[in-house]
């Protein structure tokens, strides 16, 4: 802004709706305004993004929000130290099931309301009915073991009385293959970001059973991961990028820009799918299959409700789920590593000049807000929530041990 400094930044991304903020930062000139020459490189797997970040091809990348934590805990190969200084929006995922499974769930009371409690109960009844039949367990796909998708699917199943590791099988599959796998009967359902549920419903091969926004309202999904050594070396470049991304997120959040944004993302070098598919996720008006379109509140939130703030309570919730599902051992050291991966301090100091709302706290009790609630902030005023889990549970990051213990049951 002030200086004519020119930072060259290369970012890896996956072709998903929530690459929107990065794409808009480049295409709408927010990055250039901050003196950043932003190069976006589309990748084919999260593993490839991670590898190329580790060898310095990318300074930053669109990452699944738990990935930097998993890397810092040494749970993945080629784990270079990564920080999460900004989030790339809230929500955006859906759980889609095959038409055959949906028909069975409907017999057990599932409706197009997308209510996770109702859908979960119907799935549990369907599973108990199948048990006598000597059929293999239902198979669900998620995109990555360290993903919001994996954890919210498991959370929903467990809270509905279904044991994710025993009563269903959870496999990993790349998003663009999911609708085809569902149609072919290789899997019975999946949890994925847009537009990959829309891909199944518009093709008539699946039905959306519930959405992330209903399982846990206003919940974290992707972050911008930054290579820790680069972030240390180039704090000004990182701060400039965070400002550009924040302004891009604000632009993405405005309904009047959704048409243009959908066109932009539809381009062959980005998501390369019809603009109409992308518009559904942006507007929250999803084709749920069969009954047609349903409007979902807060389906994908790119900017409002502090959607770009890297809450330490989000990092700790992801960590609690890594422990819950046996991916990580719970120790005070590991919890500290998870907490320190998310960097609200860097976010605040970079964005202060913009005068936008900055939360005063670094963490919050997740699930505590039943209604939109004004909270302490500097800059503009800030309203958060509602942010409830569908089962009414609370996650208090100060009571991490109790939460982890309670989930063992």
């Amino acid at each position, binding site marked *: 802004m002030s200086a004519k400094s020119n930072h060259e930044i290369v970012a890896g991304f996956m072709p998903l709706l929530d690459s929107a903020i990065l794409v808009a930062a480049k295409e709408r000139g927010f990055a250039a305004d901050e003196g950043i020459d932003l190069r976006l490189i589309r990748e084919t*797997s999260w*593993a490839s993004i991670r590898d190329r970040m*580790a060898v310095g091809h990318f300074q930053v990348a669109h990452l699944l929000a738990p990935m930097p934590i998993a890397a810092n805990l040494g749970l993945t190969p080629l784990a270079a130290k990564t920080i999460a200084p900004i989030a790339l929006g809230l929500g955006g995922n859906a759980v889609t099931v095959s038409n055959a499974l949906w028909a069975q769930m409907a017999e057990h009371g599932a409706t197009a309301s997308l209510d996770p409690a109702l859908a979960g109960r119907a799935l549990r009844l369907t599973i108990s009915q199948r048990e006598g039949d000597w059929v293999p367990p239902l198979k669900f796909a998620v995109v990555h073991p360290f993903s919001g998708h994996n954890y919210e699917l498991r959370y929903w199943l467990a809270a509905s009385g279904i044991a994710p590791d025993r009563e269903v099988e959870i496999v990993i599959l790349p998003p663009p293959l999911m609708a085809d796998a569902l149609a072919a009967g290789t899997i019975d359902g999946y949890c994925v970001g847009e537009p990959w549920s829309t891909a199944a419903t518009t093709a008539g091969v699946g039905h959306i059973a519930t959405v992330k926004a209903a399982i846990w309202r206003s919940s974290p999904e992707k972050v911008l991961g930054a290579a820790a050594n680069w972030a240390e070396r180039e704090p000004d470049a990182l701060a400039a990028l965070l400002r550009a991304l924040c302004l891009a997120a604000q632009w993405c959040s405005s309904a009047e820009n959704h048409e243009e944004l959908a066109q932009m993302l539809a381009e062959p070098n980005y998501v390369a799918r019809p603009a109409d598919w992308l518009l559904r996720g942006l507007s929250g008006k999803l084709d749920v299959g069969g009954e047609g379109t349903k409007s979902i509140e807060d389906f994908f939130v790119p900017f409002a409700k502090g959607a770009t703030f890297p809450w330490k309570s989000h990092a700790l919730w992801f960590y609690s789920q890594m422990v819950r599902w046996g991916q990580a051992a719970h120790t005070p050291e590991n919890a500290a590593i998870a907490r320190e991966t998310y960097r609200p301090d860097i976010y605040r100091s970079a964005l202060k000049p913009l005068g936008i709302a900055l939360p005063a706290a670094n963490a919050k009790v997740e699930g505590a807000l039943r209604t939109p609630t004004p909270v302490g902030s500097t800059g503009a005023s800030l309203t958060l929530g509602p942010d409830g889990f569908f089962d009414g549970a609370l996650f208090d990051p100060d009571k991490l041990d109790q939460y982890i213990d309670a989930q063992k049951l």
Partner: protein
Amino acid sequence: MPERPSPLSILIIDENRLRAAVIEDGLRDAGYSNLTVVNDVQGIARKIADSAPDVIVIDLGNPNRDMLESMFQLSRAVKRPIAMFVDRADQASIEAAVEAGVSAYVVDGLKRERVKPIIDMAISRFNAFARMARELDEARSQLESRKLIDRAKGILMSTRGLNESDAYALLRKTAMNQNRKISDIAESLITAAGLLAPPEE
């Protein structure tokens, strides 16, 4: 490698059949005989279990890598836990591998000295393949440009009454004056001639 106790089992996963064959040849020439090549991931868990690999070589850009990695980590398909080779490699090999577009995984406990020649071979074959593909592309586009230039010469010869070498000289001079490639000039000339051609046919 005559005195190796047990020959290493190597699994090559590459959707590009040609490249997979190039890597397979390289490893075979280097004395590795226990090789399995998989071109698509259909039923991959079974194939991994059957070949019980010590080393798995995958192209970095394979869209199924997240799935494969989780499969290695769960190690239900693989009898022994598998880690990425980088755990036993130096930074330079890691960079060379990512640069070349190779990723590799090795079973736990395998010594670095046994892994390194395999990785180095995969890297050099990946690079050789990329070079080959590039050269093929170039040869193809050279052939294309020669055809374009021939047609453009033909047009100039008939419309301006030039002989072949003068027609070529004119194309070359125009290209040099405009700082463009001869084939570009030829292409625009052909387009222009097509647009301006009398509607006789």
